[in-house]
C-alpha cells in the first residue's frame, strides 16, 4: 500500500473546491469557474481510476487502510471494486452536469456551488469508505448540503419539501445507525467486508444470539430486525415504495441543478447500500422475505409509472419516472437472492443493475438539465401545460431532449435499453411473474413520456414562447459529450459491463445458496 492515496485525494478535491468557492463569495464568475475546475478535476481522477482499474479482478483495489480509533474498531479504510468505481465515475459526471445546468442561473452563487461540491465530497466518501463509522459520516454529510440547496434555492413550497426530505432521510439514517450499533455490540466490527465475511461463514446469527438479549428473541429474529432497520435506511434513499412520498415534492421544489444531484447520484447511495451492505451481510434475511421484497420492487415500477402519467408538473412526472427506473434496479438486486435458478441469470440481472444505475444517472440528470433550460427560458415554469408546440420554436432543444426522453423510455440504440434488457433477461427465468407484471411499467413509461412530448413539444405553438431562444453554442457543446455517451453506451454497453463483470461475479459468490 505504497501507492498514491487516490481515493483520499478524490474526496479532498471537492472539499478544497468548496472552500475556495466559499472564499470567492459574491464573485459568481470565479465561484463557478472554481466549481467547474474542481468537478473536472474529480472527473479526471475517476477516469484515471477507471483506466488503472484491474477489470479482471472483482477484488477491492486502491486500498487505503489505517488505524483510526482502534478501541472502537474504527479504521480509515478506503477501497473500491467495480461497484465503487462505477459509483464515483457516475457521481463525477452527475455533479458536472449539475454545475453545467446552473451555469447561467444568476441566483446560484458561490454558496450554491460550495454546497454542490460538499455534496460531491459526501458522495465520494460514501462510495469509497468501507468502515461503517467513516461511511456513515459521509452518508450524513451529503444530506446537509442537499437540505440547504433545497431550502435556500428551491421553489415556492421549498421549506416544507426540504424539511420533509431531511426528516424522512434522517429517520432512515437513524434506523441504519441503530442497526450497525447492534451489529457492533454483537460482533465488535464496523467493517463492511469483515461483517460480510462473518455472515458468509454463518457466524453472524450465532454472534447476535450470544451477545444480544432482546427480550428473549432468537438470533435469527434479531438478525431480521436489524435487517429491516438497515433496509429502511436504504429504501428511503432509493426510494422503494412505500417510502417514496418525500421524493416528488423534494424533486419538484428543488432547483433543477439540485434535482440532478438527488436523482442522479443520491438515489444511487441507496442502491449502493443495498449492494454493498444488505446483499453481502443479510442474504438469508433477504431470501426469507424475498416475495415481499419483490412485490415492493414491482410495485415501485408499475405504481410510479402509472402515477407519472397523470402528473401535470414536468418535474413531478420525471420524479415518478425516476422511482420507476430505480425500481428495475431494486428488482434486479432482489432477484439474485432467489434460491433456485441458474447463476447465469443472476449474473445477467446484476450486470443489468450496474448498467441501469449508470444509465439512469446519465439520462435522468440530462432530463432535469433540459428542464432547467426550459425553466431558464420561461422564467421558472415547469408545468406540463405551460408550453406547447415548442419543437417549432426551439427545434434543437426539443431534438436533443427528445433523445434523452427516448433513452429514458428504453429505446434500443440508446443507453437505457441494454440495462433493462439484461435485468429482464435475468428476472424472467428466475421469477417469471415479476418480469411479466413489470412489463406494465415499460408500457406506461412510454405512455407518460409520449404525453409529455405531445403536450410540450407538439401541437400549435404557444404564442407566449414564440420568441424562445434555441440552444446556444455553449449549451450545444456542453450537451454533446453527454448525448454522445448515450449513443455509445446504447450501442456498446460492453464498455461498462466489461469493467463490472468480475465484481458482479464476486458479489454473487458472496451470496450463499
Amino acid at each position, binding site marked *: 500500500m505504497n501507492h498514491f492515496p487516490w481515493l483520499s485525494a478524490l474526496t479532498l478535491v471537492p472539499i478544497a473546491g468548496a472552500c475556495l468557492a466559499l472564499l470567492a463569495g459574491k464573485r459568481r464568475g470565479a465561484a463557478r469557474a472554481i466549481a467547474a475546475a474542481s468537478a473536472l478535476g474529480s472527473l479526471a481522477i475517476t477516469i484515471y481510476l477507471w483506466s488503472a482499474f484491474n477489470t479482471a479482478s472483482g477484488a477491492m483495489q486502491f486500498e487505503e487502510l489505517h488505524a483510526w480509533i482502534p478501541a472502537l474498531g474504527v479504521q480509515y479504510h478506503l477501497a473500491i471494486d467495480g461497484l465503487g468505481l462505477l459509483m464515483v465515475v457516475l457521481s463525477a459526471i452527475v455533479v458536472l452536469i449539475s454545475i453545467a445546468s446552473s451555469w447561467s442561473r444568476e441566483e446560484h452563487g458561490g454558496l450554491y456551488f460550495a454546497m454542490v461540491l460538499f455534496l460531491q465530497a459526501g458522495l465520494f466518501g460514501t462510495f469509497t469508505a468501507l468502515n461503517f463509522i467513516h461511511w456513515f459520516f459521509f452518508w450524513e454529510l451529503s444530506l446537509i448540503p442537499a437540505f440547504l440547496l433545497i431550502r435556500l434555492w428551491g421553489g415556492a413550497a421549498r421549506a416544507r419539501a426540504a424539511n420533509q426530505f431531511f*426528516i*424522512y432521510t434522517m429517520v432512515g439514517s437513524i434506523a441504519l445507525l441503530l442497526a450497525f450499533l447492534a451489529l457492533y455490540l454483537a460482533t465488535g466490527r464496523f467493517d463492511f467486508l469483515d461483517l460480510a465475511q462473518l455472515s458468509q461463514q454463518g457466524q453472524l446469527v450465532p454472534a447476535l444470539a450470544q451477545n444480544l438479549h432482546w427480550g428473549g428473541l432468537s438470533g435469527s429474529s434479531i438478525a431480521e430486525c436489524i435487517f429491516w432497520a438497515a433496509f429502511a435506511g436504504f429504501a428511503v434513499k432509493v426510494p422503494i*415504495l*412505500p417510502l*417514496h*412520498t418525500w421524493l*416528488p415534492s423534494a424533486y419538484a421544489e428543488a432547483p433543477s441543478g439540485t434535482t440532478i444531484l438527488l436523482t442522479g447520484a443520491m438515489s444511487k447511495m441507496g442502491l449502493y447500500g443495498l449492494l454493498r451492505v444488505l446483499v453481502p451481510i443479510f442474504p438469508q434475511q433477504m431470501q426469507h422475505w424475498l416475495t415481499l421484497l419483490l412485490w415492493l420492487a414491482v410495485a415501485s415500477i408499475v*405504481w410510479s409509472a*402509472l*402515477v407519472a*402519467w*397523470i402528473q401535470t408538473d414536468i418535474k413531478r412526472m420525471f420524479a415518478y419516472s425516476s422511482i420507476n427506473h430505480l425500481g428495475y434496479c431494486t428488482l434486479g438486486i432482489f432477484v439474485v437472492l432467489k434460491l433456485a435458478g441458474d*447463476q*447465469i*441469470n443472476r*449474473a*445477467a440481472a*446484476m*450486470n*443489468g443493475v450496474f448498467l441501469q444505475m449508470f444509465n439512469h444517472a446519465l439520462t435522468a440528470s440530462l432530463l432535469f438539465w433540459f428542464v432547467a433550460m426550459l425553466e431558464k427560458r420561461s422564467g421558472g415554469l415547469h408545468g406540463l401545460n405551460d408550453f406547447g*408546440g415548442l*419543437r*417549432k420554436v426551439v427545434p434543437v432543444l426539443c431534438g436533443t431532449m427528445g433523445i434523452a426522453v*427516448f433513452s429514458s423510455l428504453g*429505446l*434500443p*440504440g440508446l443507453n437505457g*435499453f*441494454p440495462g433493462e*434488457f*439484461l435485468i*429482464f*433477461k*435475468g428476472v*424472467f*427465468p428466475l421469477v417469471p411473474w415479476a*418480469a*411479466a407484471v413489470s*412489463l406494465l411499467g*415499460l*408500457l*406506461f413509461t*412510454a*405512455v407518460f413520456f*409520449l*404525453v409529455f*412530448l*405531445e403536450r410540450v*413539444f*407538439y*401541437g*400549435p*405553438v404557444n404564442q407566449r414562447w414564440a420568441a424562445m431562444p434555441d440552444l446556444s453554442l455553449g449549451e450545444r457543446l456542453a450537451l454533446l459529450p453527454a448525448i454522445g455517451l448515450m449513443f455509445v453506451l446504447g450501442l456498446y*454497453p*460492453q464498455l461498462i*459491463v*466489461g469493467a463490472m*463483470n468480475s465484481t*458482479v*461475479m464476486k458479489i454473487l459468490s458472496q451470496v450463499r445458496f
Partner: protein
Amino acid sequence: MDWIVRYLWLIPVLPAAAAAVIAFLKQGRRRLAATLAIGSLGVSLLLALIAFAHTLAHPALEYQNHNWLQFGAEWIRFGWLLDPLTAVMLVMVTFVGLLIFIYSLGYMAHDQNFTRFFCFLALFAGAMLGVVIANNLLLLFMCWEVVGLTSYLLIGFWFHKPEAAKAAKKAFIVTRIGDLGLFLGMMWLYGLSGTLLFYDGGAGCLEHTAVAAMAAHGVALGLTASSAIGLLIFCGAAGKSGQVPLHVWLPDAMEGPTPVSALIHAATMVAAGVFLVARMYPLMEATTGGGPSSALEVIAWVGAITALLAAFIAVGQNDIKRILAYSTVSQLGYMMLGLAVGGVAVGMFHLITHAFFKALLFLGAGSIIHGCSEEQDIRYMGGLRKLMPVTFATYAIAMLALCGFPLFAGFWSKDEILHSAHLWSISSGPFYLGAVGAFLTAFYMTRQVCYAFFGPRRPAPRTVAKPVHESPPVMTWPLIILSIFAALLGFVGTPAWPWFQSFLEGRALALNFGAFSGGMVSLMVISSVIVIAGIAIGWWLYGSKPITRAEEPDALERVQPQFFRALGQRLYIDEFYDVTVIAFSRLCARAFQWADRWVWNGAVQLVAWCTRMVSHFDSLVDAHAINAGFDGGSTGLAQGGRLISRFQNGRAQNYLRVLGVALVVLALILFWSHAG
C-alpha cells in the same frame, strides 16, 4: 465465404450513417440531404442486388456472429445472415424505398423541414434493413423498435397538427403493447434455448435441437413452449402489422405525409410483422406430432378475421388514405393467413406483390392529394380521370392488382393464399372469411375509384378551387415503374412456374402446366368470379350513375344507414377501448395517486402528527407538573428563606431575647436530664 456476406452489414449501416450525417445538417442544405439519403439507399440497393444474385447461386443460409455484450461467462452475440428470405426482403425494401425517396423529392419540395424528413426516412431504411438481416432476435428487436421510432416521428412529422401528434402517440403505444409480448417471448426463448441467435452451427434457437426441445416441452392449456413463445412473438408482429385487435393505430397513422404512408405504413414496416413470423417459422410450426401447431392455428384465425373486418370497415370510409389503410390491414391479414396455412412462401409472395401495388396506390393517392390542393375526401374529388391521366392509369393497374383481377400480381398471390386456406386441415372457416374479404376488397376499391376518377368534378366548397394538375415527372415516373411490377410481378410465382416459392424454400424448379388441374383451376375460376362480382356491383352502385353532388348520401347508406354509419365509425372499436382499457388505466393511476397522497403520505403525516402530539403532551407536563413543581419548590424555599431571614433583622435586643430564651431552654433541658 463470399465478401457480400462479410459486408452485408453495410446495407443497413449506409442509410443509417446517412441519417446521422443529415441530422447535423442545417435546414437549408436540402440538396445535400436528399443526395445523401438517396445515394446511400442506391448503394444499398446495389449491394442488395448483389446479395440477391449471390443467393441465386448459393441458396444455402450463411451467417456471421460477433460478440456484443457479456454477463458472467456468457456473451450475447450479434450477427447477420443471408438466405433467400433476407435477400428478397432486402431487394424489395431498397427498391421500393428508393422509388419513394425519389417521389418524396417532389412531394415534400415545399416543406420547410425537408432535410429532417430525409433524415428520418434514411434512419427508417437503415433500421428496417437491420430487421431484415439480423441473425439474433435481440438485434432484430432493437432495429424493430427503431423502426417504430421512425414511424412515430414520421406520423407526427406535421406535429403542429394536434391530430398528427395524437396519431403518432397512439401508433407508438399500441405497437408497444404488442412489443411487450414480443419482449416477453424473447425472454422466454432465451431462457429455454440459452441463445437468441437464430442460426449458430446447430446451437441457434431456430435450429433443430432447440426447436425440438421446445416443441416437446408442454406448458399450460395444452400449449407447447414453442407455440406459447411463438404466440408471444406474434403479439409483436400483430402490433406492427395491424392485426385485430391491435389494428387501431394504422388508419390514424395516415396523418403522416403520403410517401411515409406508402413506404412505412403500406409496403415495408407494417410487413415487418409478417416477415418476423416468416423468420420465426421453424419455431411457429414446431409440433411433436403431425398437423399445424397451435400457434399457426391462432395466427390463421387472427389473419382471416383481420382480413374480413378491415375490408368491411374500408367500405364505409371516405378519406382516400384511410380506405387504403384499412385495405392494408386487410391485406396484412391475408399475409398472416397465408403464412399460417400455406407456409413461408405463400405469405411472403403476397407480401412482395402487395408492397409494390400498395406503394403504388399510396403514391397515386399522394399524387391526387397533391394535385387537388390537399383534398383527401373522395366525395370532393371526381372526374380526375381526364385531369390526371398518368395517375389514373397507374392507379387503375394497382387497383386491379389489389382486387386480384385475373393475371395481375395480386391475383396470383391472393389465389395461392385462398387455395392453401381451402386445403387447411383444421377448419374451412378462414377460407370463407378470406373469400368474402376478397369480394369486399374488389367492392371498396371500385367504389373509391368511381368516386375519385369518374363522374363530374366536385370540389369542396370551403377550398378555393385551384385548377387540378397532373404531378411533376419526379412523382409520375415512380408510379409508372411501380405499375409495371404491379401488373407483372405475379408471373414469378404462378402455379405452373413457382419460381419464387422454390427459391424461398430451396426447391428445384420445373415448368409444370399440369399444376393447373382440377381443384386449382376451379378455385381460380371461383375467386375470379368473386372479384368480378365485387367490381361489377361496385360499378353498378357508384359508377353506372355518376355521382353529381358531394353531399348526396352514399349508395349503401340509402340501403342500410345504420350499418353504414357503424362502418364509418370504424365499428366503434376505438370508443370501446376508450371506455374499457384506457378508462381502467386512468382509474388505477388516479387511485394510486390518491393512495400516495392519503395512505402512504397520510401514514407519514400521522406519525409526524403523533410525534407532535407527544411533544405537546411533553410541553404540558413540563409546564404544569415539572415546571410547577420546580416553581413550587423554589417558592417554598424563598418563603422559608424569608421566614428565617426575619430572625436576622439586625436588631440587638431580638438577638439577646433569642439568646435568653435559648439559655433558659438549655438550662431546663440539662436540669431535666439530670433529674431523670
